[in-house]
Every structure is written in structure tokens, then in C-alpha cells.
């Protein structure tokens, strides 16, 4: 009951507000084109008829929520999952490169963080480059990665995954540097009094202390990976994936398709973040975390 009051009601109210606003803007944005059509057809619809028409155009400027919902439902549940019009199929294509890129990115981020924490030269030399790497727009880098890799014969999943890696290693590296440096002075002093070796201090103190930081940064990283995978599909002329759906929708002015692909992408992102969050909570519980 408490979650109902404290979470479901506020979230639902906002959602309702958004839907209402969305309808209002759908009418406002689609009205000029509809007036144009009616004038050419010499029709003078009533206000209700006019509103109905603005909300049911085949290629509206802003599709109404129910149009997106119907399109999303049809393309998710009414198509075979192997059809390339199925959102499930397209989401899976994007998800697979997201997960691969996320795995690479997390591993790379951890390796970089360990290097930075343990090697003073890396701390000074690597960090500025890592930060600089994230200031380069991914849209500029993505085509080059795809083209360069294609030139040496690597195509398909890997180039897309590498773009995800490029975006996702950063939060993990930064979070893990912080996490590996998070042990209190007293804990480090304690290990010193035991004459513990650097690797003992690392495995018995730094690594467990960094786990909460890892999961927090992985939540950011997994969402970034998905963005990377979608962006990676744009310049590749990919035939499948949420990015490909977005691009195709833009070519053919299928605005409803664009929006339902967008919804599919958001759902995948929310699920990914949720899964990482749950994994984090399970690990925390297994490590003796105090139940919240």
C-alpha cells in the first residue's frame, strides 16, 4: 500500500499530465496540415470532426499517443518475432550489441580504473585523455569506427558494440577509480598493521569497497551503451535495430514508426537499468548490506 501511495500515484499523475499535454500539442501541430487538406477538398468539418482528423493522420507531424500505442502493440505482439518489422526483433538486434558493448565497456572501465589507482603515472597521464574522449561527439566518431573496421573486414555486431563500449567505459572507469579509493584511512592503516601486500589490500579491501560504486556507474553505463548501439546503427545502413527503424521512419516520414521505435528503445533502457539495479541490490544483500 505504501508503495502505491508513495510511488504509483505520483508517477501515474505525471504520466497522465504528459499524455494530456501530448494530445494538446498533437492537435496544435497537426492542425495546419489538416486545415490545408480540408481547404483543398472543400470540406468544412465540425470542430469534433476536425479534432478527430488531426489525431488520425497517417503521417502526422506529432502522432497522438493512441496512434503510437496501436502501432507499438501491432509491431510488438502481432508480428512474428523473426519479421524485420517486429519491434521485438529490432529491439533484440540493438540489445545484443548493447550488451556486448556494455560488457566490453565495463571490463575496460575496470581495467583502466585499476591502472589509474595503482600506477601513479597512469593517474596523471590517462585521466585527461579519458575525459577528452567523452567530449568528442559520438555522432562524429561512430561512422569512422564503422568505416575503419569495415576496411579491415570487421562488420556486423562488433563495430556497433565498440561504439557502445566507447560510451560505457567512461562512467565505469570514473566510478571505479572513486570506488577503489573509497576505503577509509583507518581500514588502510589496519591492512598496513597486518603487513598486507598490495594485492591483499586490493582484493580484500579495495575491491569489496568499490562494489556499490561499480553498480551505480554500471547503471549509467548500460543506458549509455544503448544510446551507443542506436547511434551505431545510424551510419551503418543497418537493416535492423531500433536505430535502423528510426532512420527508416525518418526517410519515409513514418512518424508513428519513429515514435513507437522510440518507445521500444525507452522500454529497453528502463529494463536494462532495472536489471542492473536489481543485480546491485542482490549483491549488496549478499555482502551483508543493511536492508533498506
Amino acid at each position, binding site marked *: 500500500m505504501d508503495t502505491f501511495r508513495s510511488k504509483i500515484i505520483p508517477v501515474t499523475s505525471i504520466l497522465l499530465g504528459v499524455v494530456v499535454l501530448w494530445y494538446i500539442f498533437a492537435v496544435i501541430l497537426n492542425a495546419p496540415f489538416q486545415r490545408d487538406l480540408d481547404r483543398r477538398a472543400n470540406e468544412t468539418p465540425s470542430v469534433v470532426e476536425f479534432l478527430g482528423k488531426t489525431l488520425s493522420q497517417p503521417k502526422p507531424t506529432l502522432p497522438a499517443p493512441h496512434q503510437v500505442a496501436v502501432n507499438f502493440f501491432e509491431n510488438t505482439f502481432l508480428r512474428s518475432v523473426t519479421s524485420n518489422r517486429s519491434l521485438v526483433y529490432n529491439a533484440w538486434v540493438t540489445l545484443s550489441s548493447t550488451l556486448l558493448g556494455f560488457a566490453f565497456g565495463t571490463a575496460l572501465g575496470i581495467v583502466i580504473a585499476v591502472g589509474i589507482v595503482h600506477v601513479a603515472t597512469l593517474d596523471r597521464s590517462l585521466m585527461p585523455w579519458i575525459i577528452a574522449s567523452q567530449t568528442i561527439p559520438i555522432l562524429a566518431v561512430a561512422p569512422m569506427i564503422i568505416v575503419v573496421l569495415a576496411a579491415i573486414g570487421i562488420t556486423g555486431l562488433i563495430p556497433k558494440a565498440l561504439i557502445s563500449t566507447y560510451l560505457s567505459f567512461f562512467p565505469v572507469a570514473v566510478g571505479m577509480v572513486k570506488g577503489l579509493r573509497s576505503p577509509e584511512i583507518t581500514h588502510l592503516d589496519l591492512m598496513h598493521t597486518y603487513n598486507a601486500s598490495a594485492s591483499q589490500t586490493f582484493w580484500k579491501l579495495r575491491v569489496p569497497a568499490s562494489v556499490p560504486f561499480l553498480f551505480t556507474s554500471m547503471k549509467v553505463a548500460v543506458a549509455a551503451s544503448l544510446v551507443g548501439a542506436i547511434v551505431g546503427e545510424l551510419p551503418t545502413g543497418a537493416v535492423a535495430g531500433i536505430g535502423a527503424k528510426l532512420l527508416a521512419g525518418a526517410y519515409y516520414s513514418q512518424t508513428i514508426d519513429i515514435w513507437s521505435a522510440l518507445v521500444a528503445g525507452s522500454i529497453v533502457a528502463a529494463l536494462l537499468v532495472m536489471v542492473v539495479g536489481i543485480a546491485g541490490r542482490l549483491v549488496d544483500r549478499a*555482502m551483508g548490506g*543493511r536492508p533498506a
Partner: protein
Amino acid sequence: MTEQSPAVVSASKLGLTFQTNDGPVQALSNVDLTIGKGEFVSFIGPSGCGKTTLLRVIADLEKATSGAISVNGMTPEQAREKRAYGYVFQAAALFPWRTIERNVALPLEIIGLSQAEQAERIKRTMELVNLSGFEKKYPWQLSGGMQQRASIARALAFDADLLLMDEPFGALDEIVRDHLNEQLLDLWDRTNKTICFVTHSIPEAVYLSTRIVVMSPRPGRVTDIIESTLPRRRPLDIRETPEFLAIAARVRDGLRAGHSYDD
């Protein structure tokens, strides 16, 4: 103090100067001290008098900048490498992701004892601090006093003869503190360890110690060393005896003398 037993800690003309942004700070100056085996020595003084710094020098957590110090006849660094002491910090400093039992096992894992030997030592030290039955609990499930007892168990686990304690009961309420003081004395009596104990409580220092080292700040130095005339076995109510009060008065005088020096 028995003259024939070799000194566990021996310092002469010991000094330590920290370089800070505001210039050098003399944390310790000209400390001469010898601690024999089986002694219970308290260091008492106002904050900034260097009592914790002295303990940290013994533990090789700080390096002296002048003078000489030996622990078990070695340099503090060699003594630390040989795991000559157990150290109890002001905070319990238990690892929150380990159960009490695994926390006590931490030093044993580091020195590489077998599982069987670890289990045996854990059982023994947990009994010593009266924490049997709490092995599988996580630190947050225990009270502050119990957490500190667990950290004492951890310091005792590898059976060093020297126990260094830095205001271990400072954060606890008086009732718990009395209780732990009693248990600590009992433990000292049974194990015959040498204990160096930092405190800022006069009754605690007098109740526990065979010797009380009174220190004073700016520069951190030893102003008085008081031999306790109390018997080795001390019930809590010994604190109302004239003998106890006389020693406490002398400690208080020593502290006051140190203070007036600066003011």
C-alpha cells in the same frame, strides 16, 4: 616493572615533526620511555599532546624524525613485518561486508593460516571477548560496544604479545565503557599481554594501568610517568578507594601542570 625482562618498547629522545602548510609542527619531542613485558601502560593527555602519534610510531604507521625507538628489540618496521602487535583503532573499523567471524579472520587470512587453524583461533578469541554466538552477524547488527569487542578480538586473533589500543572506548557510553574496562583487565590478566592504551579519561587510565604516562601538547612530550600502586586484580569499586583517588589526583595535577605551561 621487572628489570630483567627485555623491553617491549624502548624509546629515547624520540621526536616527530610534521611538515604542514603552516610550517613544522612538533608532534613529539624528546620522549624517553621503556615498556616492559606484561605492562599495561596508558597514555593520557589533552588532544594534540601526541599520545596517538606515539602509538602510531610504535605501530610504524608514522615514522619518527629524530631519536630512536625499538619494538621487541627491532625497528618498528621490522616489528610490523613480523606482526608483533595487534592494533585497535578508535572506531571499530570492521569491514561492513564481512560477518564478525570473517572480520576476525581477516588478519589470519593475510598471514595465511589454514582454515582449521583460523576456525580454532576465531573460536578462542570470540570467547575471550564474550562474543560467542555472534559469529555470523554483520557489524551493523551489533551495538557499538560489541563492534569494538569484535575489533579487539580481531587484534588478538594472531596472538601478538603487544596490544596497541587508541582510545578504543572513547566513542562508547560510560556504562558500556565500565563493562569493557573490566573485561579488558580480565583479558590482560589471563593472556599476560603488554598493552599500550591511549585515553583521555583519568578514571579509565588509573583503573586499567600499571603505569600512566602523562603527556602535554605543543610540543607533544611526556611530562610525568606514574607507577600505579593498585593490585593487579581490580574490582570496579576499587575506584572509590583513597589509593585510587590519590593516583587520579596525581594524574590530574600532571595534566594541569602541562596545560599551564602553554596558557
